[in-house]
């Protein structure tokens, strides 16, 4: 072990903003990015994104890196472009361009799996017209690890690299994995990327048929349909988003004078022993309690919980039951927020997108609004309402729970100013 792991850089591309500054503004606005795609399907889609646009917003990037990004991903599907843009933002904000730590000591962990479903839908008509028209490049693009290879090529990274998966907990699984690599001394820094998940038509329909997706309602504003912890909650809304954290050993960050956003103070993951879409309050409570125990922080000192809160009836109720168990008499103390109400459910990327949201709120001292929380399902829980609230936050817990009984929780503590 080499001591504490800190966060030294952030990047994000999602429906609520491209880049940490725009995302911070999106969080403060409390505007739900959910829209109707015209066919009655609800989604929080990234709009107005282009890789050249995202690159031009980062004037400090070396010109050669910019050229490599265009060469490697200029024609790539949105998930890869968004992941690369988020990685470049995080790289830039962590000021890693100076050559320290060396490339061989920087790892890449991508959280996400089954990332190519919609790309397969896009390519399939060409294959159907003639198998010869299928681009050979599809042999690379269908691999989730294309994210690892492309990011490493553009940034010139030569440490460890791989993907990890945990359904909707994938982002937190990646943060945990990256923190372990750095804590074990196997890397000085690790780019942890939550990969943008675009559901294929069949994947999306399976969620509809399962009754898991919120659907458009006659006369209702699409932006009102994602309602975590509200009595009117009726399922999740998919959100497009990619995000990146640069995790770094405190020694490496201190050695090069980097300013950390926060410390990864603790984490835990455990399984319910359950293959279903059936959340379990005991498993959820166990990871929160264990993450806090490892951080050495009593539950009563938690200021903010970034809930998994998707807007699923069962999921929201189960998480509140777990939070009651963890916090006991302090249940009403921490702010509880549901970032998915603004961004949609970014699926594999959610844990990283919401870590970015959490760190922005820790640093800037506010909690973002929950715009659709008209009738909270719990009278005691401390939810933010329709306006942002100023809040001095130091300790945050960020939850991610996935189908198949995958429970994760990560504790972040704000770095001293």
């Amino acid at each position, binding site marked *: 072990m080499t001591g504490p792991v800190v966060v030294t850089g952030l990047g994000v591309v999602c429906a609520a903003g491209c880049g940490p500054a725009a995302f911070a503004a999106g969080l403060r606005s409390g505007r739900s990015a959910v829209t109707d795609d015209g066919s009655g399907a609800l989604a929080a889609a990234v709009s107005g994104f282009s890789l050249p646009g995202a690159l031009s917003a980062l004037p400090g990037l070396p010109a050669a890196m910019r050229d490599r990004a265009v060469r490697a991903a*200029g*024609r790539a599907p949105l998930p890869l472009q968004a992941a690369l843009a988020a990685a470049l933002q995080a790289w830039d904000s962590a000021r890693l361009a100076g050559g320290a730590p060396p490339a061989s000591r920087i790892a890449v962990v991508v959280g996400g799996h089954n990332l190519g479903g919609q790309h397969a839908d896009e390519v399939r008509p*060409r294959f159907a*017209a*003639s198998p*010869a*028209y*299928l*681009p*050979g*490049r599809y*042999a*690379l693009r269908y691999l989730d690890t294309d994210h690892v290879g492309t990011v490493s090529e553009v940034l010139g990274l030569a440490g460890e690299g791989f993907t990890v998966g945990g359904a909707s907990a994938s982002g937190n699984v990646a943060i945990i994995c990256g923190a372990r690599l750095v804590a074990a001394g196997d890397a000085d820094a690790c780019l942890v990327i939550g990969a943008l998940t675009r559901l294929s038509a069949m994947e999306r329909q399976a969620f509809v048929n399962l009754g898991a997706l919120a659907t458009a309602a006659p006369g209702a504003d699409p932006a009102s349909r994602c309602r975590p912890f509200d009595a009117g909650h009726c399922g999740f809304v998919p959100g497009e988003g990619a995000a990146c954290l640069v995790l770094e050993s405190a020694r490496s960050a201190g050695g090069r004078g980097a300013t950390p956003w926060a410390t990864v103070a603790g984490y835990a993951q455990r399984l319910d022993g359950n293959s279903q879409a059936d959340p379990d309050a005991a498993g959820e409570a166990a990871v929160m309690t264990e993450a806090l125990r490892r951080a050495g922080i009593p539950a009563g000192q938690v200021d903010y919980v970034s809930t998994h809160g998707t807007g699923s009836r069962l999921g929201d109720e189960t998480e509140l039951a777990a939070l009651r168990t963890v916090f006991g008499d302090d249940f009403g103390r921490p702010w509880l927020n549901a970032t998915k109400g603004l961004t949609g459910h970014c699926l594999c990327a959610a844990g990283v997108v919401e870590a970015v949201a959490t760190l922005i709120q820790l640093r800037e001292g506010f909690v973002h609004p929950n715009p659709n929380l008209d009738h909270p399902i719990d009278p005691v829980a401390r939810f933010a309402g329709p306006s942002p609230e100023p809040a001095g936050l130091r300790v945050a817990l960020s939850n991610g729970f996935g189908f198949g009984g995958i429970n994760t929780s990560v504790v972040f503590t704000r770095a001293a100013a």
Partner: protein
Amino acid sequence: MTDNILAAIARSVRTVLPEIGPDQVRQDRSLSDLGCNSVDRAEVVSLTMEDLGIDVPVNAFSGVTDIGTLADLLRAYA
């Protein structure tokens, strides 16, 4: 006919490598000379076949050495 095929190859090359100028795609040059790696070359070929609406078996490309011989092969199937 050859001109149409060369034009289609040039369009495909410039789709894959936008920085290539139209007059750089000449019969005496190879796709590798223009900066195409193996994945780029495969994509130029499939894009060109799709553009021309022709279907050439993959193993027929083994004798292709430059853009001229690629155009000749595609012309044989056009």
